[in-house]
């Protein structure tokens, strides 16, 4: 595929994403009148459902999907490991531990418009980022292997603490923790969209600026260094940019799984490994994918919503098998 074809493909993908963003807010058990589009501030039921529930929800899933997908692209390239996800380095388990502690201890507070759960998730995520970075630094240069192993070790440790806390807590708290762990966009509001946007925008900006470094780092460190890349600093920048972006997503939406591993692989199969094209493709694909999954999640059962994390996971399992069974020549 030539660069020209890839550019065309990106334009087509952008069209699909826009179409998806325009159509999905209309879908649901209640079909709003078409003229709500002119009444964003109105307080009739159609306008409230459309503008205060569905539009923020679609915007949030677009942002989160794009961010998770990009996180997967970067970590898979950076660690040269097809199984890496945005959560591999422990950001998700750190956030989950924070939320578990907040729910189980029953502390209620809010700060700067963020709820106690969100603050706990953010602190937990930042704690795990700092720990993984500290461990990698302590062993000298930021080697991918040390970072991966450190992240996995911290993930396991935090997960076991979460299990312990859940075991010791009452059924109500335990259920709330479980529900949070599934990942959920149903609490979306315009405020949460605005809270998440800066995390995503800064993450996307930094990663896009480093797409050439990412290409070379996905080969080997030696190769990147010999071409003139400041390996240590690039890896550090990419790690923090992605980790903070993912921390933001988890804080608002919970740890929605599988988008961050599926979307990058599918994009790589279609458009190739060149991050110049892979980055925009995965942003668009991830955004569309999560938005469609969430539309499914809120419509699949008429009794109650299914958390979107369950939908992405159900699609993710078979995908993993397919990934294992096919030839892995297109993996990073």
């Amino acid at each position, binding site marked *: 595929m*030539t*660069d020209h074809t*890839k*550019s065309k493909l*990106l334009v087509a993908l952008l069209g699909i994403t826009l179409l998806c963003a325009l159509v999905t807010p209309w879908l649901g058990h209640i079909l709003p009148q078409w003229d709500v589009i002119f009444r964003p501030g109105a307080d009739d039921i159609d306008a409230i459902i459309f503008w205060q529930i569905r539009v923020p929800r679609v915007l949030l899933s677009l942002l989160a999907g794009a961010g998770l997908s990009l996180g997967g692209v970067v970590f898979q390239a950076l660690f040269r490991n097809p199984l890496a996800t945005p959560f591999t380095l422990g950001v998700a388990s750190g956030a989950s531990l924070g939320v578990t502690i907040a729910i189980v201890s029953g502390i209620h507070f809010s700060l700067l418009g963020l709820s106690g759960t969100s603050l706990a998730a953010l602190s937990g995520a930042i704690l795990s980022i700092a720990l993984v970075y500290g461990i990698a630094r302590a062993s000298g240069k930021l080697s991918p292997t040390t970072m991966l192993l450190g992240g996995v070790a911290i993930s396991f440790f935090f997960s076991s603490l979460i299990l312990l806390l859940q075991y010791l807590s009452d059924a109500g708290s335990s259920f709330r923790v479980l529900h949070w762990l599934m990942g959920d966009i149903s609490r979306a509001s315009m405020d949460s969209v605005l809270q998440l946007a800066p995390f995503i925008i800064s993450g996307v900006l930094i990663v*896009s600026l480093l*797409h*050439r*470094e990412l*290409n*070379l780092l996905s*080969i*080997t*460190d*030696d*190769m990147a*260094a*010999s*071409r*003139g*890349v*400041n*390996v240590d600093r690039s890896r550090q920048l990419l790690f923090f940019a992605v980790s903070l972006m993912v921390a933001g997503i988890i804080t608002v939406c919970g740890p929605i799984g599988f988008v961050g591993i599926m979307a990058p692989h599918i994009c*790589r199969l279609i458009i*190739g*490994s*060149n*991050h*110049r*094209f892979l*980055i*925009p493709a995965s942003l668009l694909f991830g955004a569309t994918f999560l938005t469609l999954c969430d539309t499914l999640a809120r419509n699949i059962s008429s009794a109650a919503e299914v958390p979107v994390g369950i939908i992405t996971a159900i699609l993710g399992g078979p995908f993993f098998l397919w990934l294992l069974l096919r030839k*892995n*020549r*297109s*993996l*990073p």
Partner: protein
Amino acid sequence: MPPALLSALIRCLLGLTQPDSGHIEINGRPLSKLSHTELARQISYVPQQLAERISFTAMEFISMSRYAYGGGRGAGGGFKQTDEEGLEATEQAIELTGVGHLRHQALSTMSGGERQKVSIAAALAQQTPTLILDEPSAHLDPKQRDIIHDLLAKITREQNISLIVITHDLNWASAEFDRIIGMKAGQTMVDTQADAFMQKQTLMDIFDADWLLHPHPESGRPMVLPSPSQKP
């Protein structure tokens, strides 16, 4: 010398590792004073073997080596192509190595020899006065090995580039290179002309092996032959 020591040596030359003792100078400037991109304009590197998993096309891979000149950017990332000189250097490298027909082929689908040629083309596109190659032909079959050796000979003939090659192929090293540094356990044992290197005693000192030296039937250069007595 064990591979770990050789790769440590290369990592020092690429500025990835600081040497425990001594210091490295490149064209009279200490390596530690050079920025990453300055170093990349002095030395380029061909690794022993590019991993099979790399799915970049030859063209993508070669243009990536223009990184130190600000090249390899493109429309998709929101940048303009800034590196006109780079396009020329890239084309020249492709022509010299004869990989034009592989331009749009993924590295993962190439043979070992083809991949090695693309790897050398990428290093040439980096336009450095020095090229470091780590065992450039050790993993290739004899025919491919000859092709790579001929290509390297052509490069030194046609381009003003010094090659630093790490190799265990003594016959090739002594036939093609001006200066040979024999190392053992991290120590320099000899630093000499090719002819002086191919001495029974020198080889004995480095490799602890009693090999036969026999002149090549056509060129007359000494060749290393295994001693029959050492065969089981």
